[in-house]
């Protein structure tokens, strides 16, 4: 039997396997607070799954582009993106840290030009995924604790 904690949706996107307590951060990283989509978003926090607790986000009538959603891999490395059409999962992707992180991590170097008033977003180049190593595109510094620098 399918585990359906919240009401089934007809069409849209389900972001599954988010570490418990991180659903709101995921929405934040996706920029959903800044420009709220017209569609209904449901959030389930601390859902009991097969592998312990997790958070789930369901967005109706919008198929999120995997590329776009990859940004959440920093805080939800095991998340899956499920595209729902006519109540069925028609596509499933595991998120993958993208090659570049734009506007997601703040550079920890106070003298970095990206921390000034210039009209640019922070930008990091991913040097390796496992272990995750990133480098500021501007000042080339590597943050020591990436998660504490998420914008």
């Amino acid at each position, binding site marked *: 039997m399918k585990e359906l904690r919240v009401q089934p949706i007809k069409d849209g996107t389900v972001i599954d396997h988010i570490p418990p307590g991180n659903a709101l951060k995921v929405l934040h990283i996706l920029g959903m607070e800044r420009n709220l989509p017209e569609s209904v978003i449901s959030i389930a926090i601390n859902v009991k799954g097969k592998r312990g607790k997790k958070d789930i986000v369901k967005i109706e009538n919008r198929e999120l582009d995997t590329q776009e959603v990859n940004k959440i891999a920093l805080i939800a490395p095991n998340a899956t993106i499920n595209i729902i059409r006519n109540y069925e999962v028609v596509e499933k992707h595991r998120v993958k840290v993208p090659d570049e992180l734009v506007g997601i991590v703040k550079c920890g*170097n106070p*003298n*970095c*030009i*990206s921390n*000034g*008033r*210039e*009209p*640019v977003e922070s930008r990091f180049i991913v040097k390796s995924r496992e272990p995750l190593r990133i480098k*500021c*595109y*501007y*000042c*080339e*510094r590597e943050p020591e604790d990436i998660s504490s620098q998420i914008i």
Partner: protein
Amino acid sequence: MNFKGRDVISIKDFSREEILHVLDVAERMLPIAEGKEKSDLLHGYIMASLFFEPSTRTRLSFEAAMKRLGGNVIGFARPGTTSLKKGETMADTIRTAESYCDVIVMRHPQEGSARLAADFASVPIINGGDGAGHHPTQCLLDLFTIKREKGKIEGNSVALIGDLKYGRTVHSLAYALALFGIDMKFISPPELQMPKEVVEECREMGVEINIENSLDDIGDMDVLYVTRIQKERFPDPEEYSRVAGSYRIDRKLLEKAKKDVTIMHPLPRVDEISPELDSTPNAAYFRQTFNGVPVRMALLALVLGVVE
């Protein structure tokens, strides 16, 4: 090899072959740099010299380079005289300047500024120093100096001496020397050691690196590259004097070195090299300063596409 339109942000943007090409072009520029030959190679071209942070050598030698080649120069020597004071972003200053010129040379106190400028400008950006970041033209002129003093870059052993932690020129230079397969000694007070990423990177490139705390063992070095140890790095002035004193190059030390050892320094120097050495053939630092002109001429001509 095509340099036309290229930005010069970091020495890492260049391959070994490209570096050698720049140095070859610089070699050809020598008589013009010395004022022995006149040139109008860059006649009709305008270089904007944007110094968001003051500098003497870099700015003067770039401006001299452009003018020796018959080009024109516009710009500012400190941000005080610009609309940056009124709160304009650097990006806007760059977009304004580029509409008046063919190439921009800039120095800025913040890391990454040149990279950012290059993303906004369609004319080539040459980085004249971005905070603690890069200073690629210094690196190229250092390599050019080694080549001229020694006949070639390869096969020399080089000691980098002084403040290796904060001295930005030595980080790029270490990388560039490693690219040429040069074994190095990094000699510094323990608190000012070469960052471990730089050491690792050089070793990964296959060169031998020795980390030392004293000048005792420089007898087989071909080049001593000396940098300034800054007072600000030491909370205690006495500690500073003690440390700085033990990394000073003087006549006594020269006696322990190879007879034809080359002494370099990016200048300005304070006490690191005794003035009594200035008149020795070993002292290459003033020639090194001059070498900034032909190297910058070469870069300007190359990125403007006037020379291939």
